[in-house]
């Protein structure tokens, strides 16, 4: 006869062990699954607020001192700016995570994995194999579809893979909210590499417009990966159907494609005698709204799922 084991730590459990969605839990991991982990949400909120503060700070400093960098110094400054959004989130997260600590090494490893997958697979596939810059701008509908099918699916699948095939099967992935935490780490890794590529390809960065673009990319990539992570977290601890994970990746890809297209439309302005052609501020507003709405929705969904579990509505077996 098969003996039940905990689906997280794979240790044998008693016959009256708690079950959730057909999965058996030891007492410790049943308690962990429903943990609220407020530090993770505060880190998410801190990331959004911190990045907006970071943009304002750079805008003020540039306005006051008018720094003129060139050559490798400009590239180095740009790369430093590209790393800051991820460092801000990691700093917030590590600071907030002291009470319910997530293994720091795993979070950082997923961040690095997201960056490596972006550089090794995502960016070459989108830019060189699909050459999206050659055909996406040709028609609005074709551009939107292409952004979803190519940019959205490539980026979201790689961020999903960075979590699914690394920490997801490990015992350290033991809370519903872990999907969002590791997803955000993968998304920020991906965003960091996108931003570094953008800076190196342009031979540096126009500080005021560049810093907004960096923050927009980071907020968007973190949000969509957080969404995929939510689906991963539910799939890990609940009895979700086979289409659940594909639906999560597809939803993130569609939102990513719509965001990419909208950002392009909103930041492109009509040319006039004073110049113009590009205004990054609407893109920042859009990214902030998307990030706040995504993390807000994920927070309330996970909280609701935890409440339902704790009230015993969807728990099976064992004493309540």
């Amino acid at each position, binding site marked *: 006869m*098969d003996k*039940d*084991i905990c*689906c997280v730590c794979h240790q044998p459990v008693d016959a009256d062990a708690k*079950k959730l969605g*057909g*999965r*058996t839990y030891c007492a410790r991991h049943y308690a962990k699954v429903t943990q609220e982990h407020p530090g993770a949400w505060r880190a998410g909120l801190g990331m959004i607020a911190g990045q907006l503060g970071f943009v304002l700070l750079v805008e003020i400093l540039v306005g006051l001192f008018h720094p003129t960098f060139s050559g490798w110094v400009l590239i180095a400054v740009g790369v430093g700016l590209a790393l800051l959004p991820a460092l801000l989130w990691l700093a917030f997260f590590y600071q907030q995570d002291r009470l319910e600590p997530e293994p720091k090494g795993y979070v950082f490893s997923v961040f690095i994995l997201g960056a490596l997958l972006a550089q090794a697979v995502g960016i070459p596939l989108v830019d060189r194999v*699909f*050459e*999206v810059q*050659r*055909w996406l701008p*040709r*028609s609005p509908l*074709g551009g939107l*579809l*292409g952004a*979803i*099918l*190519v940019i*959205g*699916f*490539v980026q979201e*699948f790689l961020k*999903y893979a960075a979590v*699914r095939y690394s920490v997801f099967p490990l015992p350290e992935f033991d809370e519903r909210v872990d999907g969002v935490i590791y997803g955000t780490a993968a998304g920020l890794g991906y965003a960091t590499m996108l931003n570094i590529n953008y800076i190196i390809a342009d031979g540096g960065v126009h500080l005021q417009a560049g810093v907004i673009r960096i923050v927009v990319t980071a907020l968007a990539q973190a949000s969509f990966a957080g969404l995929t992570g939510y689906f991963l977290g539910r*799939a890990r601890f609940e*009895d*979700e*159907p*086979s*289409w*659940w*994970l*594909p639906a999560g*990746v*597809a939803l993130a*890809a569609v939102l990513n494609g719509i965001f990419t297209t909208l950002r392009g439309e909103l930041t492109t302005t009509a040319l006039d005698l004073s110049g113009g052609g590009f205004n990054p501020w609407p893109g920042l507003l859009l990214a902030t709204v998307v990030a706040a709405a995504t993390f807000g929705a994920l927070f309330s969904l996970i909280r609701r799922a935890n409440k339902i579990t704790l009230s015993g509505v969807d728990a099976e077996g064992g004493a309540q």
Partner: protein
Amino acid sequence: MTASSQISRRDRWADWAVIALVAVALLSGLWLRETTLYRAEDFTLGDAGLSGRIFTGWVRQTGTDPLLRARNPLSGAFNTVLELRSRALADDADPALVLDALALERAATVDAYRTLSTEQVRVRGETAVQRTFTYVMVDHSPYMNRLPRVVRGVDVSLRDAGRLIVVTYLADSETFDADYRYFRTFIESLRY
């Protein structure tokens, strides 16, 4: 069968379903790319007895020399161009004569024209002469501030009874390789 083995089998299905979904999305993206970049429509040059397929959205001009000139208006500062010419040529004459004459004509109208290579190639199963060249395109308008562009080109001569059909491809040196497929597809579509 235990609940956990059912779940793990469903998890595996979910993994494969994600991979299948992404594969379908990327294949659809590839199809969309091909359709957007390389959708073509038929053209016929009745007097010259030539027909083929030219890309949708390209600006077409017909005349006597060249018989057809099509340019891609979305291909940057220098629009990628395909041209079609027909020159009378005795069956035993060297096709390079026609290409030499074309080179002289171009050298008189563009800046810094240089022939790069002349070689025999196989086109549609037959031997053809191919010449590659380069020149600099300078916009002489006093109202335009544009940097000169380096243009690369290819002439391919296809022998037909009593004439030589010359297919020309011109592109900015930066987009030459990326756009080369237009040239290859165009040549393969020609009927005469």
